Protein backbone atom coordinates (compact mmCIF):
# COMPACT_ATOMS: atom_id res chain seq x y z
CA UNK A 1 0.00 0.00 0.00
CA UNK A 2 1.30 3.44 -0.95
CA UNK A 3 1.92 5.67 2.04
CA UNK A 4 1.55 9.41 1.34
CA UNK A 5 4.66 11.39 2.23
CA UNK A 6 4.50 13.69 5.25
CA UNK A 7 5.04 17.39 4.56
CA UNK A 8 8.37 18.01 6.29
CA UNK A 9 9.23 21.42 7.70
CA UNK A 10 12.02 22.82 9.90
CA UNK A 11 10.07 22.02 13.05
CA UNK A 12 9.31 18.35 12.33
CA UNK A 13 12.46 17.43 10.35
CA UNK A 14 14.25 15.91 13.40
CA UNK A 15 11.34 13.52 13.91
CA UNK A 16 11.65 12.10 10.40
CA UNK A 17 15.47 12.07 10.52
CA UNK A 18 15.22 9.93 13.68
CA UNK A 19 12.60 7.70 12.06
CA UNK A 20 15.18 6.83 9.38
CA UNK A 21 17.35 5.52 12.23
CA UNK A 22 14.45 3.48 13.57
CA UNK A 23 13.65 5.85 16.42
CA UNK A 24 10.23 7.16 17.39
CA UNK A 25 10.58 10.59 18.99
CA UNK A 26 8.30 12.24 21.48
CA UNK A 27 8.48 15.83 22.65
CA UNK A 28 9.60 16.53 26.21
CA UNK A 29 9.34 19.89 27.90
CA UNK A 30 12.45 21.24 29.65
CA UNK A 31 10.23 23.24 32.02
CA UNK A 32 7.26 21.06 33.03
CA UNK A 33 8.93 17.77 32.01
CA UNK A 34 5.72 16.52 30.41
CA UNK A 35 5.86 14.34 27.29
CA UNK A 36 3.72 15.22 24.31
CA UNK A 37 2.86 14.00 20.83
CA UNK A 38 3.03 15.01 18.03
CA UNK A 39 6.33 16.68 18.93
CA UNK A 40 6.51 20.46 18.70
CA UNK A 41 9.02 23.16 19.54
CA UNK A 42 6.91 24.81 22.22
CA UNK A 43 5.25 22.70 24.93
CA UNK A 44 1.46 22.51 24.44
CA UNK A 45 0.96 22.26 28.20
CA UNK A 46 3.11 25.16 29.50
CA UNK A 47 4.66 26.94 26.47
CA UNK A 48 8.17 25.93 27.60
CA UNK A 49 11.05 24.92 25.33
CA UNK A 50 11.12 21.27 24.35
CA UNK A 51 13.52 18.65 23.09
CA UNK A 52 13.11 15.15 21.68
CA UNK A 53 13.21 11.88 23.60
CA UNK A 54 13.07 8.41 22.04
CA UNK A 55 10.11 6.21 22.89
CA UNK A 56 10.74 2.57 23.77
CA UNK A 57 8.44 1.51 20.96
CA UNK A 58 5.84 -0.51 22.84
CA UNK A 59 2.24 0.34 23.53
CA UNK A 60 -1.40 -0.72 23.51
CA UNK A 61 -4.08 -0.33 20.90
CA UNK A 62 -6.43 2.44 22.14
CA UNK A 63 -8.84 2.44 19.20
CA UNK A 64 -8.87 1.61 15.50
CA UNK A 65 -11.03 1.36 12.42
CA UNK A 66 -10.55 -0.68 9.28
CA UNK A 67 -11.46 1.28 6.17
CA UNK A 68 -13.36 -1.22 4.03
CA UNK A 69 -14.68 0.68 1.01
CA UNK A 70 -11.32 1.27 -0.62
CA UNK A 71 -9.20 -0.79 -3.02
CA UNK A 72 -6.91 -1.91 -0.21
CA UNK A 73 -8.40 -1.95 3.31
CA UNK A 74 -6.22 -0.37 6.00
CA UNK A 75 -6.47 0.21 9.72
CA UNK A 76 -6.17 3.66 11.19
CA UNK A 77 -5.44 3.49 14.91
CA UNK A 78 -4.58 5.30 18.10
CA UNK A 79 -1.82 3.62 20.10
CA UNK A 80 -1.09 4.57 23.70
CA UNK A 81 2.65 4.25 24.18
CA UNK A 82 4.28 2.89 27.35
CA UNK A 83 5.32 6.47 28.04
CA UNK A 84 1.65 7.45 28.33
CA UNK A 85 1.05 9.51 25.21
CA UNK A 86 -1.35 8.41 22.50
CA UNK A 87 -0.53 8.77 18.80
CA UNK A 88 -2.34 8.42 15.51
CA UNK A 89 -0.95 5.62 13.37
CA UNK A 90 -1.75 2.56 11.27
CA UNK A 91 -1.79 -1.11 12.27
CA UNK A 92 0.20 -3.11 9.71
CA UNK A 93 1.64 -6.58 9.05
CA UNK A 94 -1.28 -8.30 10.73
CA UNK A 95 -4.76 -9.72 10.18
CA UNK A 96 -6.92 -6.59 10.29
CA UNK A 97 -9.95 -8.68 11.24
CA UNK A 98 -8.33 -9.83 14.47
CA UNK A 99 -7.46 -6.44 15.97
CA UNK A 100 -8.75 -5.77 19.49
CA UNK A 101 -8.62 -2.68 21.65
CA UNK A 102 -6.04 -3.32 24.36
CA UNK A 103 -3.77 -5.43 22.12
CA UNK A 104 -0.06 -5.10 22.91
CA UNK A 105 1.72 -3.51 19.93
CA UNK A 106 5.21 -2.43 18.92
CA UNK A 107 6.48 0.15 16.48
CA UNK A 108 7.74 -0.68 12.97
CA UNK A 109 8.82 1.78 10.30
CA UNK A 110 7.42 1.79 6.77
CA UNK A 111 8.65 3.75 3.78
CA UNK A 112 6.38 6.45 2.37
CA UNK A 113 6.23 7.23 -1.34
CA UNK A 114 9.01 9.80 -1.01
CA UNK A 115 11.22 7.47 1.03
CA UNK A 116 10.47 9.01 4.45
CA UNK A 117 10.11 6.40 7.21
CA UNK A 118 6.78 6.40 9.00
CA UNK A 119 6.15 4.89 12.45
CA UNK A 120 3.39 2.32 12.36
CA UNK A 121 2.48 -0.53 14.71
CA UNK A 122 2.11 -4.27 14.61
CA UNK A 123 0.95 -6.77 17.26
CA UNK A 124 3.76 -7.35 19.78
Amino acid at each position, binding site marked *: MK*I*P*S*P*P*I*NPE*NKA*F*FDAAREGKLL*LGKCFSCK*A*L*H*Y*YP*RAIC*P*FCSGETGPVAAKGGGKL*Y*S*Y*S*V*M*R*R*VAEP*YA*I*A*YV*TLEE*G*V*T*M*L*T*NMVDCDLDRLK*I*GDAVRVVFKA*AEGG*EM*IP*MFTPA
Partner: protein
Amino acid sequence: MSLKRTACIAGAFEHPTRKAPDKSTAQLHAEVARGALADAGIDREDVDGYFCAGDAPGLGALSMLDYLGLKVRHMDTTETGGSSYVVHVAHAAEAIAAGRCNVALITLAGRPRSEGSSGTQPRNYGASAPDAAFEVPYGGATVNMYAMVAMRHMHEFGTTSEQLAWIKVAASHHAQHNPHAMLREVVTVKDVLASPMIADPLHRLDCCVVSDGGGALVVTRPEIARDLKRPVVRVLGAGEAMKGQSGGRIDLTWSASAWSGAAAFAEAGVKPADIQYVSIYDSFTITVLMQLEDLGFCAKGAGGRFVADGGLISGSGRLPFNTDGGGLSNNHPGNRGGMTKVIEAVRQLRGEAHPAVQVKNCALALANGTGGQLGSRHGSATLILERA
Protein backbone atom coordinates in the same frame (compact mmCIF):
# COMPACT_ATOMS: atom_id res chain seq x y z
CA MET B 1 -22.06 40.22 28.74
CA SER B 2 -24.79 37.62 28.47
CA LEU B 3 -26.34 36.91 25.08
CA LYS B 4 -29.63 35.93 26.70
CA ARG B 5 -32.46 37.45 24.66
CA THR B 6 -30.15 39.97 22.98
CA ALA B 7 -30.94 38.73 19.47
CA CYS B 8 -33.52 36.88 17.41
CA ILE B 9 -33.39 34.64 14.37
CA ALA B 10 -35.77 36.44 12.05
CA GLY B 11 -35.10 34.62 8.78
CA ALA B 12 -34.18 31.05 7.88
CA PHE B 13 -33.94 29.42 4.49
CA GLU B 14 -32.79 26.00 3.34
CA HIS B 15 -32.01 25.62 -0.34
CA PRO B 16 -34.31 22.97 -1.84
CA THR B 17 -31.64 21.60 -4.16
CA ARG B 18 -29.67 18.48 -3.29
CA LYS B 19 -27.69 18.38 -6.53
CA ALA B 20 -26.62 21.51 -8.37
CA PRO B 21 -24.22 20.64 -11.20
CA ASP B 22 -25.37 23.67 -13.17
CA LYS B 23 -24.78 26.31 -10.49
CA SER B 24 -21.75 27.91 -8.90
CA THR B 25 -21.10 27.88 -5.18
CA ALA B 26 -21.32 31.68 -5.02
CA GLN B 27 -24.66 31.52 -6.82
CA LEU B 28 -26.01 29.13 -4.18
CA HIS B 29 -24.86 31.56 -1.47
CA ALA B 30 -26.77 34.35 -3.23
CA GLU B 31 -29.88 32.21 -3.57
CA VAL B 32 -29.99 31.27 0.11
CA ALA B 33 -29.24 34.87 1.14
CA ARG B 34 -32.21 36.06 -0.90
CA GLY B 35 -34.34 33.26 0.53
CA ALA B 36 -33.57 34.07 4.16
CA LEU B 37 -34.14 37.81 3.69
CA ALA B 38 -37.48 37.11 1.99
CA ASP B 39 -38.42 34.75 4.81
CA ALA B 40 -37.65 37.46 7.37
CA GLY B 41 -39.29 40.22 5.34
CA ILE B 42 -36.13 42.30 5.58
CA ASP B 43 -34.74 44.38 2.73
CA ARG B 44 -31.21 43.67 1.56
CA GLU B 45 -30.29 47.32 2.14
CA ASP B 46 -30.90 46.73 5.85
CA VAL B 47 -28.21 44.03 6.12
CA ASP B 48 -25.26 45.56 7.96
CA GLY B 49 -23.48 42.43 9.19
CA TYR B 50 -22.27 39.38 7.23
CA PHE B 51 -21.01 36.01 8.38
CA CYS B 52 -19.53 33.17 6.32
CA ALA B 53 -17.09 30.29 6.84
CA GLY B 54 -14.65 28.17 4.88
CA ASP B 55 -17.23 27.08 2.31
CA ALA B 56 -17.45 30.64 0.96
CA PRO B 57 -15.51 30.81 -2.32
CA GLY B 58 -12.64 33.23 -2.69
CA LEU B 59 -11.35 35.47 0.06
CA GLY B 60 -14.11 34.90 2.59
CA ALA B 61 -16.40 37.82 3.33
CA LEU B 62 -14.50 40.08 0.93
CA SER B 63 -15.27 37.99 -2.14
CA MET B 64 -18.78 37.18 -1.01
CA LEU B 65 -19.83 40.71 -0.09
CA ASP B 66 -18.46 41.99 -3.39
CA TYR B 67 -20.34 39.25 -5.25
CA LEU B 68 -23.57 39.76 -3.32
CA GLY B 69 -23.32 43.55 -3.66
CA LEU B 70 -23.83 44.15 0.05
CA LYS B 71 -22.41 47.01 2.11
CA VAL B 72 -21.95 46.10 5.77
CA ARG B 73 -20.21 47.50 8.82
CA HIS B 74 -19.45 44.17 10.50
CA MET B 75 -17.88 40.98 9.06
CA ASP B 76 -17.01 37.65 10.66
CA THR B 77 -15.47 34.65 8.90
CA THR B 78 -15.10 32.36 11.90
CA GLU B 79 -14.26 28.90 10.59
CA THR B 80 -15.02 25.92 12.82
CA GLY B 81 -16.02 23.45 10.10
CA GLY B 82 -19.63 22.29 10.11
CA SER B 83 -20.32 23.96 13.45
CA SER B 84 -19.43 27.42 12.04
CA TYR B 85 -23.00 28.57 11.45
CA VAL B 86 -24.09 27.74 14.98
CA VAL B 87 -21.12 29.80 16.18
CA HIS B 88 -22.08 32.56 13.75
CA VAL B 89 -25.52 32.97 15.35
CA ALA B 90 -23.86 33.54 18.72
CA HIS B 91 -21.27 35.89 17.23
CA ALA B 92 -24.04 37.78 15.46
CA ALA B 93 -25.84 38.16 18.78
CA GLU B 94 -22.60 39.48 20.30
CA ALA B 95 -22.16 41.96 17.48
CA ILE B 96 -25.77 43.11 17.77
CA ALA B 97 -25.47 43.50 21.56
CA ALA B 98 -22.27 45.50 21.05
CA GLY B 99 -23.98 47.80 18.56
CA ARG B 100 -21.81 46.65 15.65
CA CYS B 101 -24.75 45.69 13.46
CA ASN B 102 -28.54 45.42 13.47
CA VAL B 103 -29.22 42.81 10.79
CA ALA B 104 -26.74 39.98 10.38
CA LEU B 105 -26.83 37.64 7.39
CA ILE B 106 -25.19 34.20 7.64
CA THR B 107 -24.75 32.06 4.52
CA LEU B 108 -23.53 28.55 3.73
CA ALA B 109 -23.41 26.74 0.39
CA GLY B 110 -21.48 23.95 -1.24
CA ARG B 111 -21.49 21.42 -4.06
CA PRO B 112 -19.65 18.34 -2.73
CA ARG B 113 -22.04 15.97 -4.51
CA SER B 114 -21.40 17.54 -7.90
CA GLU B 115 -17.70 17.69 -7.13
CA GLY B 116 -17.49 13.98 -6.22
CA SER B 117 -16.61 14.39 -2.55
CA SER B 118 -16.75 11.35 -0.25
CA GLY B 119 -16.14 10.74 3.43
CA THR B 120 -13.78 7.87 2.59
CA GLN B 121 -11.28 10.21 0.92
CA PRO B 122 -8.29 11.10 3.12
CA ARG B 123 -8.65 14.61 4.53
CA ASN B 124 -5.83 17.03 4.00
CA TYR B 125 -5.96 20.57 5.35
CA GLY B 126 -2.74 21.56 3.59
CA ALA B 127 0.94 20.92 4.12
CA SER B 128 1.28 23.75 6.63
CA ALA B 129 -1.32 22.35 9.03
CA PRO B 130 0.76 21.72 12.17
CA ASP B 131 -0.44 18.13 12.45
CA ALA B 132 -0.21 17.27 8.73
CA ALA B 133 3.06 15.31 8.85
CA PHE B 134 1.69 13.18 11.68
CA GLU B 135 -1.63 12.42 9.99
CA VAL B 136 -1.32 12.50 6.20
CA PRO B 137 0.70 9.23 6.01
CA TYR B 138 -2.00 7.31 7.89
CA GLY B 139 -5.04 7.87 5.67
CA GLY B 140 -7.20 9.73 8.14
CA ALA B 141 -10.49 10.33 6.30
CA THR B 142 -13.72 11.74 7.68
CA VAL B 143 -15.42 8.42 8.28
CA ASN B 144 -12.59 6.55 9.99
CA MET B 145 -11.82 9.45 12.32
CA TYR B 146 -15.40 9.16 13.61
CA ALA B 147 -15.38 5.36 13.49
CA MET B 148 -12.55 5.21 16.03
CA VAL B 149 -14.77 7.15 18.44
CA ALA B 150 -17.54 4.61 17.93
CA MET B 151 -15.13 1.72 18.40
CA ARG B 152 -13.88 3.12 21.71
CA HIS B 153 -17.45 3.89 22.87
CA MET B 154 -18.44 0.28 22.22
CA HIS B 155 -15.37 -0.93 24.11
CA GLU B 156 -15.91 1.32 27.13
CA PHE B 157 -19.68 1.25 27.45
CA GLY B 158 -20.94 -1.78 25.55
CA THR B 159 -22.70 0.36 22.96
CA THR B 160 -23.90 -1.76 20.02
CA SER B 161 -24.31 -1.28 16.28
CA GLU B 162 -28.04 -1.90 16.78
CA GLN B 163 -28.27 1.05 19.16
CA LEU B 164 -26.40 3.33 16.76
CA ALA B 165 -28.70 2.16 13.96
CA TRP B 166 -31.74 3.45 15.88
CA ILE B 167 -30.46 6.99 15.29
CA LYS B 168 -30.65 6.49 11.52
CA VAL B 169 -34.02 4.78 11.86
CA ALA B 170 -35.41 7.85 13.66
CA ALA B 171 -33.96 10.20 11.04
CA SER B 172 -35.56 8.16 8.26
CA HIS B 173 -38.94 8.24 10.01
CA HIS B 174 -38.75 12.03 9.87
CA ALA B 175 -37.36 12.27 6.34
CA GLN B 176 -40.32 10.40 4.85
CA HIS B 177 -42.35 13.60 5.38
CA ASN B 178 -39.77 15.92 3.80
CA PRO B 179 -40.27 16.22 0.03
CA HIS B 180 -36.76 17.66 -0.36
CA ALA B 181 -34.99 14.87 1.57
CA MET B 182 -32.40 12.89 -0.37
CA LEU B 183 -33.40 9.62 1.31
CA ARG B 184 -37.12 9.37 2.10
CA GLU B 185 -37.40 5.66 2.61
CA VAL B 186 -38.04 4.50 6.18
CA VAL B 187 -35.33 2.05 7.20
CA THR B 188 -35.05 -0.51 9.99
CA VAL B 189 -32.21 -1.46 12.31
CA LYS B 190 -31.77 -4.55 10.15
CA ASP B 191 -31.40 -2.37 7.03
CA VAL B 192 -28.66 -0.33 8.68
CA LEU B 193 -26.74 -3.41 9.79
CA ALA B 194 -27.13 -5.00 6.35
CA SER B 195 -25.72 -1.95 4.56
CA PRO B 196 -22.05 -2.24 3.56
CA MET B 197 -19.42 -1.69 6.23
CA ILE B 198 -17.55 1.51 5.36
CA ALA B 199 -15.13 1.86 8.27
CA ASP B 200 -15.59 -0.48 11.25
CA PRO B 201 -17.99 -0.19 13.03
CA LEU B 202 -19.83 2.33 10.81
CA HIS B 203 -22.04 1.04 8.00
CA ARG B 204 -23.11 3.05 5.00
CA LEU B 205 -26.40 3.91 6.70
CA ASP B 206 -24.52 5.17 9.78
CA CYS B 207 -23.14 7.91 7.50
CA CYS B 208 -24.79 11.15 6.40
CA VAL B 209 -25.58 11.93 2.79
CA VAL B 210 -23.31 13.97 0.52
CA SER B 211 -25.43 16.75 -0.93
CA ASP B 212 -25.19 20.07 -2.70
CA GLY B 213 -27.14 23.03 -1.39
CA GLY B 214 -26.97 25.57 1.36
CA GLY B 215 -28.81 27.65 3.87
CA ALA B 216 -28.94 31.10 5.36
CA LEU B 217 -30.06 32.83 8.54
CA VAL B 218 -30.93 36.41 9.42
CA VAL B 219 -30.21 37.46 12.99
CA THR B 220 -31.48 40.78 14.27
CA ARG B 221 -32.20 42.72 17.43
CA PRO B 222 -35.47 42.02 19.30
CA GLU B 223 -36.95 45.48 18.52
CA ILE B 224 -36.63 44.80 14.80
CA ALA B 225 -37.80 41.18 15.03
CA ARG B 226 -40.97 42.24 16.84
CA ASP B 227 -42.02 44.44 13.91
CA LEU B 228 -41.64 41.66 11.32
CA LYS B 229 -44.47 39.38 10.33
CA ARG B 230 -42.73 36.19 11.46
CA PRO B 231 -42.88 34.38 14.80
CA VAL B 232 -40.04 35.59 17.02
CA VAL B 233 -37.29 33.10 17.88
CA ARG B 234 -34.87 34.36 20.51
CA VAL B 235 -31.33 33.32 21.38
CA LEU B 236 -31.35 32.20 25.00
CA GLY B 237 -27.85 30.81 25.40
CA ALA B 238 -24.81 29.79 23.40
CA GLY B 239 -21.50 28.03 23.83
CA GLU B 240 -18.52 27.17 21.65
CA ALA B 241 -15.50 24.95 22.27
CA MET B 242 -12.87 22.80 20.60
CA LYS B 243 -11.23 19.57 21.67
CA GLY B 244 -8.24 18.04 19.98
CA GLN B 245 -5.52 15.50 20.52
CA SER B 246 -4.41 17.42 23.61
CA GLY B 247 -0.70 16.83 23.09
CA GLY B 248 -1.26 13.07 23.12
CA ARG B 249 -3.56 12.93 26.16
CA ILE B 250 -6.32 11.54 24.01
CA ASP B 251 -9.69 10.52 25.40
CA LEU B 252 -12.22 9.69 22.69
CA THR B 253 -15.05 9.06 25.14
CA TRP B 254 -16.22 12.66 25.30
CA SER B 255 -16.46 15.62 22.96
CA ALA B 256 -16.24 19.41 23.11
CA SER B 257 -20.04 19.47 23.38
CA ALA B 258 -19.53 18.86 27.10
CA TRP B 259 -18.02 22.35 27.25
CA SER B 260 -20.18 24.18 24.71
CA GLY B 261 -23.34 22.64 26.14
CA ALA B 262 -22.53 23.52 29.74
CA ALA B 263 -21.86 27.13 28.71
CA ALA B 264 -25.11 27.39 26.74
CA PHE B 265 -27.27 25.85 29.46
CA ALA B 266 -25.71 28.12 32.09
CA GLU B 267 -26.37 31.21 29.98
CA ALA B 268 -29.91 30.16 29.11
CA GLY B 269 -30.74 29.18 32.70
CA VAL B 270 -32.45 25.96 31.58
CA LYS B 271 -31.72 22.23 31.93
CA PRO B 272 -31.59 19.46 29.34
CA ALA B 273 -34.92 18.12 30.67
CA ASP B 274 -36.57 21.46 29.73
CA ILE B 275 -35.68 21.13 26.03
CA GLN B 276 -38.58 20.04 23.82
CA TYR B 277 -36.75 19.55 20.52
CA VAL B 278 -33.11 19.04 19.56
CA SER B 279 -31.21 19.46 16.31
CA ILE B 280 -28.08 17.36 16.74
CA TYR B 281 -25.32 17.27 14.16
CA ASP B 282 -25.53 13.86 12.54
CA SER B 283 -22.52 13.46 10.28
CA PHE B 284 -22.57 9.89 11.59
CA THR B 285 -24.77 8.06 14.05
CA ILE B 286 -21.96 8.08 16.63
CA THR B 287 -21.77 11.88 16.39
CA VAL B 288 -25.35 12.10 17.67
CA LEU B 289 -24.76 9.65 20.50
CA MET B 290 -21.71 11.54 21.74
CA GLN B 291 -23.46 14.91 21.68
CA LEU B 292 -26.57 13.66 23.48
CA GLU B 293 -24.40 12.33 26.30
CA ASP B 294 -22.09 15.34 26.43
CA LEU B 295 -24.97 17.82 26.40
CA GLY B 296 -26.44 16.02 29.41
CA PHE B 297 -29.55 14.47 27.87
CA CYS B 298 -28.39 11.17 29.37
CA ALA B 299 -25.44 9.93 31.40
CA LYS B 300 -22.08 9.24 29.75
CA GLY B 301 -22.21 5.75 28.34
CA ALA B 302 -26.02 5.56 28.46
CA GLY B 303 -26.54 7.02 24.98
CA GLY B 304 -27.11 3.64 23.36
CA ARG B 305 -30.06 2.87 25.60
CA PHE B 306 -31.34 6.45 25.26
CA VAL B 307 -31.63 6.31 21.46
CA ALA B 308 -32.74 2.66 21.16
CA ASP B 309 -36.29 1.60 20.38
CA GLY B 310 -37.24 4.84 18.69
CA GLY B 311 -36.09 7.15 21.49
CA LEU B 312 -35.49 10.02 19.03
CA ILE B 313 -38.66 9.67 16.90
CA SER B 314 -40.94 12.71 17.07
CA GLY B 315 -44.33 11.96 18.56
CA SER B 316 -43.40 8.70 20.23
CA GLY B 317 -39.80 8.98 21.45
CA ARG B 318 -38.45 10.64 24.56
CA LEU B 319 -36.57 13.39 22.68
CA PRO B 320 -37.56 14.37 19.12
CA PHE B 321 -34.47 15.12 17.03
CA ASN B 322 -33.71 16.27 13.48
CA THR B 323 -37.30 16.30 12.30
CA ASP B 324 -36.23 17.32 8.77
CA GLY B 325 -34.41 14.00 8.43
CA GLY B 326 -31.07 15.55 9.36
CA GLY B 327 -27.81 14.92 7.61
CA LEU B 328 -28.43 11.19 7.78
CA SER B 329 -31.46 11.33 5.48
CA ASN B 330 -32.23 14.86 4.33
CA ASN B 331 -29.32 17.10 3.53
CA HIS B 332 -25.71 17.88 4.45
CA PRO B 333 -24.99 20.90 2.25
CA GLY B 334 -21.33 21.56 1.66
CA ASN B 335 -20.46 18.70 4.05
CA ARG B 336 -21.37 21.18 6.78
CA GLY B 337 -24.46 20.45 8.84
CA GLY B 338 -24.60 23.23 11.42
CA MET B 339 -26.75 25.52 9.28
CA THR B 340 -29.56 23.03 8.71
CA LYS B 341 -29.53 22.21 12.43
CA VAL B 342 -30.39 25.81 13.28
CA ILE B 343 -32.94 26.06 10.45
CA GLU B 344 -34.98 23.05 11.62
CA ALA B 345 -34.90 24.29 15.22
CA VAL B 346 -36.33 27.61 13.97
CA ARG B 347 -39.05 25.75 12.04
CA GLN B 348 -40.00 23.82 15.18
CA LEU B 349 -40.17 26.97 17.33
CA ARG B 350 -42.28 28.73 14.71
CA GLY B 351 -44.58 25.71 14.44
CA GLU B 352 -43.60 25.38 10.78
CA ALA B 353 -42.12 21.88 10.79
CA HIS B 354 -44.05 19.23 8.87
CA PRO B 355 -47.28 18.50 10.83
CA ALA B 356 -46.31 14.83 11.12
CA VAL B 357 -43.18 15.72 13.06
CA GLN B 358 -44.03 19.10 14.61
CA VAL B 359 -43.49 19.08 18.39
CA LYS B 360 -46.63 20.40 20.08
CA ASN B 361 -46.25 23.90 21.53
CA CYS B 362 -42.53 23.82 20.94
CA ALA B 363 -41.16 26.74 22.94
CA LEU B 364 -37.61 25.65 23.81
CA ALA B 365 -35.16 24.01 21.40
CA LEU B 366 -31.47 23.26 21.20
CA ALA B 367 -29.27 23.13 18.11
CA ASN B 368 -25.82 21.59 18.34
CA GLY B 369 -23.11 21.57 15.71
CA THR B 370 -19.80 19.76 15.45
CA GLY B 371 -17.06 20.51 12.99
CA GLY B 372 -13.82 18.92 11.88
CA GLN B 373 -13.26 15.33 12.94
CA LEU B 374 -14.53 13.99 16.24
CA GLY B 375 -11.58 11.61 16.48
CA SER B 376 -8.80 14.16 16.01
CA ARG B 377 -9.84 17.77 16.49
CA HIS B 378 -13.31 19.17 16.41
CA GLY B 379 -15.35 22.20 17.24
CA SER B 380 -18.66 22.13 19.02
CA ALA B 381 -21.25 24.86 19.21
CA THR B 382 -24.48 24.86 21.18
CA LEU B 383 -27.40 27.20 20.73
CA ILE B 384 -30.50 27.28 22.93
CA LEU B 385 -33.45 29.04 21.35
CA GLU B 386 -36.91 29.98 22.61
CA ARG B 387 -40.14 31.09 21.02
CA ALA B 388 -40.96 34.52 22.33
